[in-house]
């Protein structure tokens, strides 16, 4: 069965610093990968997705992620964070032979001034 691991439950960072949120997945078949963001008391919204092609994917709000098949990773990065990026971030995987969308446990990004 596929699974998603987000290694960091919380990531504190100062404003304008770079950040990386880590995500690893396990699957024996091809996958599609997603990053979602959840602001307080809201639902989830899509940041970016990897389906195929270029392994570097750019999303909204200046975020990007890199798919690394050999390391089964899909880490999310931003070169310079803002206070408004404070939120919870979820990595998700969809396996090509199922209809399920499986989420990781989330990483809470807190940006300090």
């Amino acid at each position, binding site marked *: 069965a596929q699974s998603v691991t*987000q290694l960091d*439950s919380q990531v504190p960072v100062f404003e304008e610093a770079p950040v990386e949120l880590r995500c690893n997945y396990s699957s024996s078949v091809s996958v*599609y990968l*997603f990053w*979602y963001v959840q602001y307080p008391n*809201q*639902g*989830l*919204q*899509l940041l970016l*997705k990897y*389906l195929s092609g270029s392994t570097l994917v750019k999303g909204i709000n200046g975020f990007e992620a890199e798919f690394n098949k050999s390391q089964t990773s899909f880490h999310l990065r931003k070169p310079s964070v803002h206070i408004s990026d404070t939120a919870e971030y*979820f990595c*998700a995987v*969809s396996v*090509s*032979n*199922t*209809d*399920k*969308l*499986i*989420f*990781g*446990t*989330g990483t809470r990004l807190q940006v300090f001034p």
Partner: protein
Amino acid sequence: DAGITQSPRHKVTETGTPVTLRCHQTENHRYMYWYRQDPGHGLRLIHYSYGVKDTDKGEVSDGYSVSRSKTEDFLLTLESATSSQTSVYFCAIRDRGREGTEAFFGQGTRLTVV
């Protein structure tokens, strides 16, 4: 915003009572999902549907049932609510499953079982 409405948005219920949460979509998407969100666990899949009357279990389906009699509505029922089912419940819709399309989420229902 994708046309997804969850109702109610908040509910407090007593242990042992049945509870039904509703998810309504206006996008005509084939796939609908119910997740629960709990601290430290992220989002866990309860049940999902891949068409009218077609449903399947997720990873935490015990104590929950679902029904989908129309494309636009997906109901989640807690047969006999327990305190462990206190959670925030999210509905999601998806146009296609295996082709990797993204899911769109509702605003969530906060359920408290006392």
